[in-house]
Each structure stands twice: as C-alpha cells, then as structure tokens.
C-alpha cells in the first residue's frame, strides 16, 4: 500500500497498527471515541485495510485524494454530517477547495457537498491508495 506522506498530518501517529484503534496516547484531543471507529459499525461493503494505518482527518486531504470515512467526532455538526452521507464506510473524494482555501468540495454518496475545514476536521477518513478501484 502506498501512502503519500504529505497526506499525513503531523498530529496523526504513523505507528499505531490498527486503524480502528488509534493510539490512546495520541495527543490530539479531538480524536474520536474508539467505539466510533469500530469497523463492525461500518457498512459491509467497505473493505477497510486493517493492516494500514492511514487514518487522518478530512481537512488534511489534498485535492484529488480518495478516502473512506471511518468515523465522525461527536459534536453539534456530527449528526448532520452523517445524515448527509458521511457515514463510516462511505467513499469520499476531495474535489476542490474554494479559491480562498476554505470551504472544500467533496464527492460523497454520489453528490457534491461543501463543508468548511472546521467541519472536515471532525471527519476521520482512511486514505484509499491511488489506483484502488472506487
């Protein structure tokens, strides 16, 4: 699996082996409860690569990146994000960013959604390696 390192934000440890169980010592206070990342919750069609750790937040992805949603950090916006289709297992593509850098345009569940970096930061995704079929 190819993981481009520029897609990895500093605050995500590359050492944890299981994407479903992020390192509990991780300093980022915004990490979701591990239960959120339970693969059993995700839709059966999503084949999470359990041997790769590339869980990052959506806002850190570059334009053109493809990923799979693994969890949403609980907050005021989380239910709406999920209702709009950002549920674990859903595939997501970063289509573009607005000319001024924020918000971003993502492709999810067959439609385009725009959200601010602040909201994208609540969404945990796992990078789909380039070349993997959507």
């Amino acid at each position, binding site marked *: 699996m190819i993981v481009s390192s520029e897609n990895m934000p500093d605050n995500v440890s590359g050492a944890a082996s299981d994407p479903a169980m992020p390192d509990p010592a991780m300093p980022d206070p915004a990490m*979701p*409860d591990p*239960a*959120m990342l339970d693969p059993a*919750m*995700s*839709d*059966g*069609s999503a084949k999470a690569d359990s041997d790769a750790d590339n869980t990052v937040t959506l806002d850190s992805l570059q334009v053109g990146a493809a990923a799979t949603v693994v969890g*949403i*950090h*609980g907050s*005021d*916006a*989380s*239910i*709406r*994000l*999920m*209702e*709009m*289709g950002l*549920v*674990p*297992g*859903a595939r997501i*593509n970063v*289509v*573009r960013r*607005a*000319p*001024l*850098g*924020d*918000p971003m*345009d993502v*492709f999810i*569940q*067959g*439609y*385009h*959604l*725009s*959200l*601010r970096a*602040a*909201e994208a930061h609540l969404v945990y995704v796992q990078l789909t390696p380039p070349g993997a079929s*959507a």
Partner: protein
Amino acid sequence: MTSPKNRTVALLGNPNCGKTTLFNRLTGLRQKVGNYPGVTVERREGRLAGSTGITLLDLPGCYSLTPKSPDERIARDVLLNWIPDLPAVDAVIVVVDASNLRRNLFLATQVIELGLPVVLVCNMLDLVASHGKQIDLVALGDRLGVPIVGTVATTGAGLDELCTVITRCCTSASPASLSSSGSACSSGAAGFSFADDALLSVTAPLRDALVAHQIVPADIACPVARMLASSPSSDSDVSPDHWPAEFTLAFARIQKQWRSNGEHPSSALVQARYVALQQITGGVVDHEPTSFISRSDRIDAIVTHKFWGMAAFTTVMLVMFLAIFSGADPIMGFIESGVSWLGGFTASVLGEGVLTDLLVDGVIAGVGNIVVFFPQICILFLFIALLEDTGYMARVAFLMDRVMSGAGLHGKSFIPLLSSFACAVPAIMATRTIENRRDRLATMLVAPLMSCSARLPVYIILITILFPGALWLKVGIMLSMYALGTITALAVAFILKRTLLKGPTPTFIMELPPYRMPMPGALIRNMWDRSKLFLTQAGTVILALSIVLWALAYFPRVDAKAGLSPGAQLRQSYMGQIGRGMEPIIEPLGFDWKIGVGLAASFAAREVFVSTMGIVYGIEGDVDESSTTLIDAMSNARRDDGRKVFTPLTGISLMVFYVLACQCMSTIAVVKRETNSWRWPTFMFAYMTVLAYVASLIVYQGGLAVGFR
C-alpha cells in the same frame, strides 16, 4: 363522487429534488402562499388539479426530520401534527431525486417510519436515463413497502399516474391516520430494523413522555423519540415551544452521555439507516454514481477556479447590477409619471379639500415613493431566482464563504448583502435561505447599512452642491460613502455575532447541486411570488406610515385665507415643529432645522429628502432672487448669522448620517414581518440612529477642530 373530500397531502423532499416544479405541475395556478403561524417559513398550498377535495401542502425542503433550521422544523411539525390550526396530513408524497437515490431515501425512510401513508415519487428519471442507467421502481417500492411512481417533473411524465395514486391513497386511508400501519419499536414499517439497545434505553424516557402527554400516538412514539434524540435540544429554533419537564431531563441525559463518550447516541441510528439503504438500493439501480466528472463538474472546474471563477463571479454580479439600475430606469420613469398623473387626475376630479390632499399627497405620493422601486425589486428577485434555479447560488456561497466568515457570517449572507446595494427590502427577504437563525438576523440587521439606491439622489444632490468641478473628487466621495456603509455593515455583523447573537459556531454543510437549465416559467413565477409579497405585506405598513407622515406635515392647518406658501405651512406643521425641536440635538452635527425636517420626512423614503428640501427652500426670503433651481437655493442658503448652511463639512456630515441612519419605513416593516416581532426592527432603528449620530458628530466636530468650516 369519486374523489375524496378535504384531504391534506403533504409534499416533502430534499432541496433541489424538483419538488417545487412538481407542486406547480400538480396544482396549476391555484395556489395560496402564506406563512406558518408564528414563523416566517413560507407556506404554499394548492388544490390537486382534477380533484375536488385534495389539498397539496408544499413543505420546506429538508434533508432529515431532525431539524437544523426553522424550515426543517416546520416539515417535521406538520407531519406530526404539532402545528395548531393546521389539519393533520392524510398522506405524504416524498419526492426523491432518482439520480441521487440513497441520500434522498434517507428522509423517505424517516417518514415511512412514522406510519403515515407515503407515496414515493422518483423524480428526475430523465437524468438517470441520460447517464445510461435504470431504476427498478417495482423492486424499490416492494422493499420500502410503499407505492412508487416515476416522474420527470419538468416534462410532466408520470404525473397522471401520480394523481391516480394520490387519489387512491386518500380514498383508502382514514383521515388523520397518523400511524395506521404502526411501527413497532424494533422494526420500521418498511421492515428494516434499527434496534439498538443503547439508543432504545436512552430514548425510553422521551418515548414515555411523548405517550404520557399524548404528543404523538403510542405506536409511533418510538421512532419520534429517536428522531428527537438527535435534535439539538438547546436550540429553541428547532424544538417545540412547550416541552414537558421530562423532556428537558431526558435531553439532558442524552447530552450528558454524548459528552462523556464523544459519540452521539443517535449516530448509530443514522449509520444503521445508511446500511439499510445500501441494502434497499442494492440491485435497484444498475450501477452506483461513482464518477464525479459530469457536465456539472466541468462547469465547476471553471466557475470555482481561482482566477476564472472569480472573474466569472465578478461579471455575473456586474451584469446583475447593470440590469437592476439601467434595466429598471425606463419603467421607473414610467411609474413616476404615472403616479404624478394619478395625483393630478385625482385632484382634478375631487377638487380642493383635506380629502384630496390626503389622497394625493399622502396616499398616492407616499405609496408612489416606494412603488418606484418595484421594478428594481422585481429584477433583483428575477436574478436571485435565476441564480438559485441554475445552481449558481450555492457556488456564490462556496466562493464567498471565506470572506463572509471573517465577519462571522455565512457564505449565504453574501447575496442578501450585495442585493442591499439596490434595496434593503428584497435583501432582507432573501435572507430566508440562511438556515441559522443568528446568522440570518445578523445579516438582516446590517443589510440596511449598505448604500441602497434611494440614497443615491441624496448623495448626488449634496455632492453637486458642495463640490462643483473636480470629477475625481465627486467620484471619490461617492465611493467613500459606499465603502463606509459596507465596512460598517461587516464590522457591526462581527460585533453582533460576538455579543447579542452569540451562539455555537454555525455550520457550512451545503449541497452543491448540479447545474440545471432553468425553466423561464418557473423563474417568472418565483420572481412574481416574492415581489407580490413585498407589495402586499410591506405595502400595508408603508401605506399606513405614509398617511401618518403626510398628516404630520399637513397639520395643524393655519387659516387658509392667510395664503400660506407650502414652505410656511411645512414650517409650522408638526413635522416642522419636529424639525425645530430637533435643532438643538442636531446642531452639533452641523444641521439646522430645515435639514431636520428633511431628515424627519426622509423616514418615508430617503429620496424624499430632495423634494422636502425643495419645499423648505422654496420660501426662503434670503435666497437670492435669481436662483431658481433647488441646487442654487441650497448652496446659497444661509444661517441666521449669515454663515452658509451647506458647507462641505456639513455636507459630508449629512451624507455620513444618510449612510448609517435607518430612515426607511419599508425596511422596518419588512424586518418586523420577517422576525415576527417589533423587537429587532426597534433594535435596528436604535443602533443605526445612534451610529449615524455619533459618526456625524465625530465628522463635524472633528472637522471643525482641525479647521474645516
């Protein structure tokens, strides 16, 4: 008789699913547009064409029944029959965009769970076909357990079948049958199960309270409780007004659980619903939409491009303003002459008298002052409809969100604020698309600070009098006035969002719908509905206030035989007394009582300042005999001590006052209407007046201090 009587069928769907087009097709021109009680959410209803007693109620577009905005709350409250004075709905037509089935069905399954008779409409089948796909409607209907009809709302295909299905549904269902099919706690009507023990236990108190207070029938208490559990409980915008006490407790518990483990108890439900939808749609659509390289996307590559996107955006906005200002010009001239003709005609028919003066100078002239702006308002609404129906409006919000969020506002605040350069009234009406109440209020409250077209004549006459010659100076001052208004608006919004309208950070989770070719008929209709709203609703307040203002300038009458000139009459009228009473207050700003009269009269509409000045100065003894025009009269006007009234400093001070003051009864009327209380319009009037006064004071006194006169 074949058709059932007095049935209400609600029409529900995601935004952009084609619901409005469908509604217009189904009801034809027989529609009623109004508001829901207590809120300014648009309520449209119409008779189903070809039926005798089926009323269609068009609900606001929404993504889910757990509301995030007053609009979405209305949709839920109507379905649950929580709105007083509104009949219970007998059936629900859920419209889904077939080209984006799964997310659209999310809402549909929520409605199906409530046990109301549902007819599912699969719209936009033409788009699906154009992508070379097909939808197995029969299988989908079977899996969801509801009748399903495929349509193309733009061409009308499938609508006959839909009418038949609706009529059949209304005939068989007993009235007000909230939950005739009933959905038990563990399984929905459609047979998919969301049994989640954690969620069940946490929502149990809510369910019990719902049943105990008979808020909903017992058999749907469970899904309703689950739905409520994911609503932001603290937000009074989206929760019913009078929750029983148990609700508050139950909500507090849910919130606590959520805070403690970082996961909202409802997230499992949302997730389970999507998993179920995956199964329901599996094999129904012959393949999933996977490619985002569509025609729409190719347009977006240009339209949201760093350079071309901004260039296109600027062009669109310029064209819009050119159309508003130059396109409306001839019609405005036509209306003006029409109004004066009507005035003259009325006067000649009625002869002299108080009644004539009331009709001609009060009613006709007063309403005329506002109606002149009607063409501009229509053109503005036409552009807004065009931007919305093509899908460009969402891109404007996408492009400008960063700029607006700097002032604490939302990308969707951009168009209302920009529209305000034409007129604050349609701008305030256009804020309805902003879901968050605080963002919407902030936008409304600052919109009147943008220099509208009624200020233009005031700026022009003052600049002409005070700065003859130098074109660059004139243009510079004019632009400074526009800049002052804009900067102040953003600054005030910034402050409001941190003080009075403080709240949780609003979200910007917005669909970017595909670009679509708008239908001219729909555009015209959309424009006309909103423009009419302006005429009928704001119009009544404007009429009343016009009469009041007329009376203030007309009474008390002195003996008519004395042959008082209009100026002398105005001087001793209540309005003149107000002007003179104001003099000590406005003196520090550099204004005399005549300007005070102009300010008071401007409340009808700012451009009235010019004509009032005409009346006031028409009688001045110290005006040079040879000066016949108003400009000459004003530039030569002197104070008692012989100083000129209109010095450049007074002029700037006066213009600054006009930039910032809320001298527009239409704006106040429309804010009252949109917020449903006098609180916000009062606040707006107060803060703007104080702002204007202080700013003018600083300009004038500061100017004096540094040696200007």
